[in-house]
């Protein structure tokens, strides 16, 4: 049994969709890597994403009253190996938005706390091929009642999200392919106003949030010290409504997006507990979201709580 550990954590905030981080989810929820038992990985990432054009429904436009809308975030993430094949993950980002034109104020603050349990259900090896299957259950909840009624400047959607994800990963020699699919149950949210218009007038503070799905395919090269992957990621909202021409976005819009990106991770030979991490991505297609491009960089460090030091 090879004892690999890939103390890799990143945060997908930057890959969030839309006018804002649609769902903040730790990348590790989406990758095929595990922390060993009693090992804690602490990661910090910074992310930047921005867009100048966005889609109102299917109509792509720019808006000189917003200019370039950017989101900067920094996130702290933890991943702990509870027992073999079971990790507990947690993350909390701090997010700041800004618009380069117009009068709208940017917003900032702590966004959503995410917790997830990641379980490696199957691991089969034959020759040089490894097949792994993971199941992840996640829960995210706003860490405070931030303002969700000022999209696209809001830092999040304010919805509690319960997610279930399955990942299948194949590694042949050093080449990998990972398929992942998730269903996100999104709780209703409360806005500050007592009525709002979607495709009809609704007289309530409460807003029905459509659920969403996330699908991802990653492929690349993986060794103990280097990981390089390309990915395509799709987020689809099951329901919701389109932004009407020249209207403001709203939390329960149908927010869909497909993006492609590259990610790299590097672990120092001299100090294998320390990892560096960088990535970038671009939105190819979307609906009621910004055509965003994003970058991230991060560092992670593994603390071993077992009696003997980690052996690579």
């Amino acid at each position: 049994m090879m004892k690999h550990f890939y103390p890799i954590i990143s945060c997908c905030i930057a890959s969030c969709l839309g006018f804002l981080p649609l769902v903040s989810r730790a990348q590790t929820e989406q990758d095929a890597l595990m922390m060993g038992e009693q090992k804690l990985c602490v990661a910090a990432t910074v992310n930047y994403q921005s867009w100048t054009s966005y889609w109102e429904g299917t109509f792509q436009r720019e808006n000189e009253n917003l200019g370039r809308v950017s989101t900067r975030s920094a996130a702290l993430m933890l991943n702990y190996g509870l027992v073999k094949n079971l990790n507990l993950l947690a993350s909390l980002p701090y997010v700041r938005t800004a618009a380069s034109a117009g009068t709208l104020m940017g917003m900032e603050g702590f966004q959503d706390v995410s917790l997830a349990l990641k379980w490696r259900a199957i691991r089969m090896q034959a020759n040089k091929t490894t097949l792994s299957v993971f199941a992840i259950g996640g829960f995210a909840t706003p860490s405070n009642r931030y303002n969700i009624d000022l999209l696209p400047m809001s830092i999040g959607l304010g919805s509690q999200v319960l997610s279930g994800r399955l990942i299948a990963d194949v590694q042949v020699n050093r080449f990998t392919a990972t398929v992942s699919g998730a269903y996100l149950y999104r709780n209703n949210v409360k806005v500050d106003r007592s009525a709002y218009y979607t495709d009809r007038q609704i007289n309530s503070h409460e807003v029905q949030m459509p659920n969403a799905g996330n699908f991802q395919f990653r492929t690349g090269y993986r060794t103990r010290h280097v990981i390089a992957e390309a990915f395509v990621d799709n987020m689809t909202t099951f329901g919701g409504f389109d932004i009407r021409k020249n209207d403001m976005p709203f939390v329960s819009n149908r927010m869909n997006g497909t993006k492609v990106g590259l990610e790299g991770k590097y672990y120092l030979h001299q100090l294998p507990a320390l990892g560096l991490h960088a990535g970038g991505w671009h939105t190819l297609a979307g609906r009621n979201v910004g055509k965003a491009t994003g970058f991230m960089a991060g560092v992670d460090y593994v603390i071993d709580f077992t009696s003997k030091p980690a052996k690579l």
Partner: protein
Amino acid sequence: MKKRFTFIVTGLSLCLLVACDKDIVESNAGYQALQPAVTDAQAGNWTPVIVSSAAEFPLPAPQPTTSAAYQQELKELKAMRSSLTEEQQRVINYWKVGSVLRWNEIMRELVAKHNLPPYQNGDNTYPVPSAANPFAYPTFPFSNPPYAARAYAYVSVAQYDALVMAHHFKEVYKRAAPYKVDAAIQPAIPKSELAAYPSEDAVVAGVTLEMMKLLFPADRAYIDRLVEEEKNYRLWSGANVRSDVVAGDSLGRWVARKIIQRAKTDGMGAAGGNAELWTKLEDECKAKGETPWYSLETPKRPPMLPLFGNVKPLLFESAAVASLRPGPPPGATSKKMREELDEVLQYTRNPTREQMRIVNFWADGVGTYTPPGHWNAIATEEFVKKNYSEVRWARNYALLNAALMDAAIMCWNTKYHYFNARPCQLDPRIKTLTGVPNFPAYISGHSTFSGAAATVLSYLVPEKAGEFKLMAQEASNSRLFGGIHYRSDCESGLETGNKVGRYAILRAQTDGAD
């Protein structure tokens, strides 16, 4: 060990699969069937707002209830009552809450639907919605606050005047309701002591249809469907026979014609102005040595309805407008203005979540029913507790909305008289917590609307006067917190609104209803 994890994961997955109930219960879902505490049978003697007298509407006498024609109508009613579909039952349950209330809700929805500023053309000019071609983009109307205030007012006033006329004829002809004539008919709604001819619901349906054709022509199909529903509901519920409904419908339409005559000549047609006027406003402001307002939108959008301030008010003469107009705002370069700017800057630099909540709650911007609609919603929540008759519902909405329309006129008149700049124009460091409206600052529309509405509502629902006052103050503050307005905009706006509201109270004290 493994079992436990399987259990955990399975548990989480199950949670996801549970079809959680996300249905929202709206604030208007629990309204009870209309059951007036007082029938207001004598409302035929109340003073209408626009029409002069019942003599203008020669509504023919109904057939006696002993006639064959009437008996035939009773038969028709019984046949309908004996085989109601689920859809018909839904229609009954929707309309029985009250006709005037339901139309107010529908109006708010249509205002929100149409409250979107047109998207620019390729050459950076802006298209203007056309009543002659309401379906083409940008669809007609763009129901911004002044448009909305006027629409709410004319519909409410038309419903009120029509119901006053209806009550006049009810009293003249005294035809009993079908369930009074034939005990075999058990209506699906509370029985009423009011005479049934003409049907008040049909009157409201008829008058509203005609008004809506003028104000929301692109929604004709939707409105037609609702009007038909409403008239049918009276039959399906056993509340009226067909001739009650037909008479009411006709009377409603006649009354609407009078209101439309007034609406078409009130000056709204010219309210948009033209490029020459827009420049003139700017030049006149500069000539006074002041800093003129300019559009903060890119591309620059022409000012919203600069001549709306010349529209003929409902509650007072046009001549009174100038005397009601507040004095000038602080000069753009004055020390006072610097202080006010600094105050706005302070609020926007350190907004608390509570301030954001207040900004959001009262924002009533793009895609909403506007501040007049918000006050209609607030009024509705109070009125619904009162068990009013239809005619009193209509009268109270008419008072509220006449005040809101006149508040819009006063506010717009003042805005374009002084033509002063928004805070973020004078100090670009000011960032806003909601969208900046595309018209001059002084005086604040939200404040003017809220002052007027709170004043009228305090008269109509006196036990809530303190609450309304606080709400108006909060609505006014919301614009300061949001970086949209200076303190002087808000204070003068509230004060001007209060003055307008008092005109509505004067009317209420003398219209015969109290």
